[in-house]
């Protein structure tokens, strides 16, 4: 691939580390799915 380094996939020194935010997205999704499961059990 002959693209400039900035145009290649991968991390860049200027990027913030959003690992904690990504982890939070996953935690929220799991909580929402568990919540929907609970709603199904409680009201179904």
């Amino acid at each position, binding site marked *: 691939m002959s693209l*400039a380094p*900035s145009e290649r996939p991968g991390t*860049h020194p200027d990027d913030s580390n959003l690992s904690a935010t990504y982890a939070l997205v996953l935690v929220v999704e799991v909580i929402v799915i568990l919540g929907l499961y609970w709603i199904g059990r409680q*009201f*179904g």
Partner: protein
Amino acid sequence: MQWIDWAIVAVYLFWIVWTGLRMGRKTEELESYFLANRSLPWWAVGLSVMATQLSAITLVGTTGQGYNAGLSFIQFYFGLPLAMIILSLTVVPLFRRANIYTAYEYLERRFDSKTRLFTSLLFLLSRAMATGVVIAAPSVILSVIFGWNLTLTILAFGIPTIFYTMKGGVQAVTWADVKQMVVIVGGLSAAAVALIMGLPDDVTVGAALRTAGAVGKMQALDFTFDTSTTYTFWSGLIGGLFLSMSYFGCDQSQVQRYLTAKSVDEARGSLLMSAFWKIPLQVLVLMVGVLMFVFFLFNQGPILFKNTYLPAVQSSTRAAEYAGLDREYAQAFENRKLAARAMAAAQADGAPAGAASFARSEFVRNDTAVREVRAKATALVKDVTGDPDYNDTNYVFPTFVTEHLPVGLVGLIIAAIFAAAMSTIAAELSSLATSSVIDIYRRHLKPEADDAHYVTVSKWATLFWGLFACFVATFAAEMGSLIEAVNVLGSYFYGSILGVFILALGVKRANGDGAFVGLIAGMSAVWWVDQHTATVYLWLNVVGAVVVTVVGTIVSLLTGGATAGPDAGKSAATRAA
């Protein structure tokens, strides 16, 4: 509609067009017109991303789906948060730093011009048709509900949107989206509150939800692995992941949103807003549908919500049969209402043991009776009108709004339907204009011109696509099956275009020939699977992406591996000039 409702809709339209014109004043340069000088904050871009995805079809159709099938449609969105994380890590920084205007521009740098041309043409074709459907769907519904002229309704959606998009470019679109999102969420919340307030005094919210749950409407999750069932946990998680990656990562109508962000981090933040809020928002939309089901347990609605067929049925030889079904429905409704009240009472403290179970089975039996009468009436209408696609799902919410909500609230909800449609149409028109000017006009027809020329052409392109979409809408409105055909057409492209981007980003030795042949193979495979198996459309995205990636890799290796695109070696700044 009362005059006050009309006034609310008129104020909304004026407010949005004025916002669009005011925010989009300084658009003499191409980067300003198409990318807002890459200066917008994450929250505005994030709201614009969500508003673009939430069309009037979502608002009206999904509430109808909640009424008919309950919460199960929510599974469709389970792959979306994961897709947002993957895109934040991959294409967002890549596109943002490449200083590109369109996603397809990147494919020329990575592969060659034919791959860019082909993917951008696929986008223009599918998105232009889809924009027509986005205009047609709410136009048909509102024209039926209010008796408005269909062409005028289409123009009421199209003209203001074309006007502010053409005049103000992407800044106008984004800032109008922000306000439209407020109107949409406000309208939905008001509808939910009105539905809860509309419950009988002796029926609590908990009892109402248990009544809906007794007939399966609170059951959101289905863990069976069956590719012929449309909405399951797995089709939503895996098929939805591929669909979301394609839509948010490869479709210009979404990519253009986060290219306007101030920085890579702000662009990521805008997508992560959807990752956090999309599923809860859709739960709200579906819950409005479930609450409508409960509302119509205690308030009699029409036997069928779409009543355009009535004159044809009443003048046919089966008019007496239909009148009989109508009487049968009224009786079945009363029986179900009594059963629903009995079920709610049986859940109260102090009710005898076993009473709740008996009341629940009685309610289920009576609900089945109501559904059977509705099914008979639907079959009769299909026979008499010769319309095999007759379906009243999309008419439940508008019927509830116009016949049961108080004055003022009707105007707010109609404004929310306008907002949902206009936010999607504006973003799509802006992206269609961007791709046609950047990928086609500037690349192939007139490469050397100043920004003023390209901005003028872009405005004309916006007008052209807007009028084209209105034209398509007038035909789509008449042909229900065309709407479905456009959706199927979209699913043929989505996964395959995602496959091309996977090749570009993930397979170092992939080349233009591999990507091109892979794309053809992917779309052919999707067509074959769709025609010869019962696989539902969410899985078609997976098929397309996987076939393009595998075939593209093999062809690339057989044809000598990666080759530099025509721009390889130039700096990003040179290429952007």
